[in-house]
């Protein structure tokens, strides 16, 4: 649009001035401006990606430099996709994904709805609530590990205080039945504000006159909530859910610091499992195939996410 305006301006100005306006052509400038970014991303993201695809068809091991590398076709993929342990890791990831999203949407939406009542000082309290989500996930995992200590941890103390149980009678990080929930709790603590902020934007995007019209039609408050509020916030909620879904699908830092994947492999999410294969067992070729599987999944979800993003942008 703008370059057409410039053309019009250029054709209306005397030739010497017009030449000066053009200087470097817009097209040249556009490319000069975009090229470094694209180049950097090609070098640090796309080139490695292609390399990963190549490696995924081999039995390469990065810690044995001299060893002969054999092409083994799709064998790595076959082995991963028929491995029931990896299937279990996927289920652990699914448990983590579903419950974090459930709690974050529930609490996040409720908070946004309450904050939208515009009570005095809501800005201040919103800022306080938002703090956890900006912190370093690894460091958060690290200090929650302290809070979760049986015997000395604050979390056990508070639960014991309210339920009357012995504080040393349960170990959030050590028990097979509790560990998956311990990571859900921390992730919810950390990321509920994210869902809240996006829901708040959704609620604030609903124009007042819609409610006024509904009021004239004598629609009840409950009916207004389900026929106006929910549908209008839904695109925003989709955005939040997709983004949290992608982020938690590749969750690594928080959980690795908190549980390290244990006890057993109950909290071994896919990224932790992948790290083990790639950087502890050094099965580089196998891990590359694993990485490609995760990558394609994330890429698929990301394309849906961008579609949702554009939908929200139109509002």
């Amino acid at each position, binding site marked *: 649009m703008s370059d057409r305006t410039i053309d019009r301006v250029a054709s209306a100005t005397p030739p010497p001035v017009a030449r000066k306006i053009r200087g470097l052509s817009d097209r040249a400038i556009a490319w000069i401006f975009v090229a470094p970014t694209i180049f950097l991303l090609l070098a640090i993201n796309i080139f490695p990606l292609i390399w990963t695809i190549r490696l995924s068809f081999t039995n390469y091991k990065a810690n044995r430099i001299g060893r002969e590398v054999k092409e083994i076709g799709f064998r790595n993929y076959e082995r991963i996709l028929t491995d029931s342990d990896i*299937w279990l890791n*996927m289920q652990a990831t*699914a448990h983590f994904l579903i419950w974090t999203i459930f709690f974050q949407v529930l609490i996040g939406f409720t908070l946004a709805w309450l904050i939208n009542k515009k009570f005095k000082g809501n800005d201040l309290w919103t800022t306080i609530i938002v703090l956890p989500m900006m912190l370093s996930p690894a460091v958060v995992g690290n200090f929650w590990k302290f809070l979760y200590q049986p015997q000395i941890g604050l979390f056990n103390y508070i639960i014991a205080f309210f339920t009357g149980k012995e504080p040393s009678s349960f170990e959030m990080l050590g028990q097979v039945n509790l560990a998956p929930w311990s990571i859900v709790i921390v992730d919810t603590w950390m990321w509920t504000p994210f869902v809240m902020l996006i829901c708040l934007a959704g609620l604030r995007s609903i124009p007042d006159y819609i409610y006024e019209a509904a009021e004239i039609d004598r629609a009840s408050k409950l009916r207004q909530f389900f026929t106006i509020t929910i549908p209008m916030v839904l695109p925003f909620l989709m955005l939040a859910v997709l983004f949290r879904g992608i982020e938690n699908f590749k969750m690594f830092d928080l959980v690795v610091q908190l549980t390290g994947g244990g006890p057993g492999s109950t909290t071994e999410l896919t990224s932790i499992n992948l790290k083990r294969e790639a950087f502890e067992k050094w099965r580089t070729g196998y891990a590359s195939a694993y990485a490609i*599987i995760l990558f*394609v*999944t994330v890429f*698929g979800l990301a*394309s*849906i996410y961008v*579609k949702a993003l554009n939908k929200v942008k139109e509002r």
Partner: protein
Amino acid sequence: MMSFINGLMRLRRGPWEMLATIIIAIGVFMLMQPFVIWAFTYSFIVTLTGTVMFIIVSHFPE
């Protein structure tokens, strides 16, 4: 439903993107479901198909 099929026939972006989205969603579900292992085995192909399809159909006209 009729307009959806109509859109598919005329290679419109909207319905095709919807179809690709559904395929990706099914693939992701197959990857992480706890019921049958063969679904896990074929999830990658399904997700890959959906993703490639999404990239192609997002260039169809509106």
